[in-house]
């Protein structure tokens, strides 16, 4: 299944928000099991592109299919079940602890809650597992986000500037994680200002400017 089927297929995709074109006509295909880095200047539309792919903002015009679901007509809920999203902002319920947040996610997804301990261990949050999310530091929130995704193991990973506020350790862990994920057949799209650190990953780089794709290799 890997490589030959497109997980993302955009043709002239336009997204408007209060009259402003966040995306101004994107043409893009991303194959299953690939790793892509979306890059571009501030305001180029990286976050908007990822949000579109996650089904978090509506398509205004053009054609867009993600994981086989048509964004214009399909059920956004079905799409969302299959993508994982890690955004700029802290996510999750601020008043619940790390553990409680993950238990909620596991229950919602019918996953065994027994995995939680090991996932938290992996992202290095064991010592803060009973801290409410509100009290976590910026990097710890990011790590909780990764734990959430590890629990879900989605088909398509959409990560918005995952490096930001991760420390050195965290980045090394993250690179290893990306390798695992891609090896397991999932598709990853990352937005970043820095190139990925591990050259072994050898990602495709998509350059955005003015809400369009202007470079691709």
């Amino acid at each position, binding site marked *: 299944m890997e490589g030959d089927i497109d997980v993302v297929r955009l043709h002239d995709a336009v997204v408007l928000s209060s009259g402003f*074109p966040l995306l101004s006509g994107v043409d893009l295909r991303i194959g299953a099991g690939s790793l892509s880095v979306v890059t571009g200047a501030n305001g180029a539309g990286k976050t908007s592109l990822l949000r579109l792919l996650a089904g978090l903002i509506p398509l205004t015009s053009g054609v867009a299919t993600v994981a086989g679901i048509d964004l214009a007509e399909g059920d956004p809920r079905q799409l969302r079940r299959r993508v994982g999203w890690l955004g700029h902002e802290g996510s999750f319920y601020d008043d619940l602890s790390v553990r409680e947040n993950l238990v909620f996610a596991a229950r919602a997804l019918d996953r065994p809650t027994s995995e939680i301990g090991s996932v938290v261990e992996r992202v290095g949050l064991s010592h803060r597992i009973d801290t409410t999310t509100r009290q976590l530091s910026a990097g710890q929130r990011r790590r909780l986000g990764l734990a959430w995704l590890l629990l879900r193991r989605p088909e398509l990973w959409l990560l918005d500037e995952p490096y930001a506020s991760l420390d050195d350790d965290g980045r090394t862990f993250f690179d290893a994680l990306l390798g695992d994920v891609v090896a397991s057949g999932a598709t990853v799209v990352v937005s970043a200002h820095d190139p990925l650190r591990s050259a072994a990953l050898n990602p495709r780089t998509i350059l955005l400017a*003015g*809400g369009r794709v202007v470079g691709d290799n």
Partner: protein
Amino acid sequence: MMKQLSQRLLGPVTLVLLGLTFWLGLWVTPPDRVQGNLVRLLYVHPAIAWVALYVSFGTATIASALYLWRRTRSYVMDRIAHCSMEVSVVFIVLTLITGSIWGRPTWGVWWAWDARLTSTAILGVLALGYLALRRANDDPALRARRSAVFAILSAINVPIIHFSVQWWKTLHQGATVFTSSRTVLVHGSMAWTLLFSFVGFTLLFFWLLRARYRLEIKREESSSAQLDEALASRRSEGAF
């Protein structure tokens, strides 16, 4: 061809009918034994209330339901719902005003804690709420869905208003024009005038709706021209 002609005639016919209503209502029909000249409000208030509740709010509700139903979902329905709700606000306000004017001499007050009056006022706020809800949502599809649900939920008030006079038995006039036995309780020239007023105000609604709808289309067209401009300038952002 027929459609075009009827559209052309809509305005003039409305004017003629309303003119007839006013002429008959003010000069031809006799004053009432009890109410005196106040009875002439009979040719304005019930017809306006009818348009407010059933014709305009009803159109908005039906259009909303049609939008929600997948097979008939289209922005045409959304636009019709929106435009008729705006017209409905106007007619509800007119109902309240004409009712108050009528109430002052007959009941001695502008307002009473009567079930029909209060529920009519609440319907007015719901219609305003509908417009506020539209303003608060940016995404057209979401806005259309949310406002459609809200319109349908709000429509529960219409039967409450209608039956309120029976359920609570208060000040407001019971059913006079449309009784359950469907016999009209007024006679002669008065009946004709009433008929003209109902038809006239109903046509007035459709006339206003059509004008408002056209305005909306124009607005959307001009915004799609703006869109091309916005797209061009957005695309050039990166190219320096």
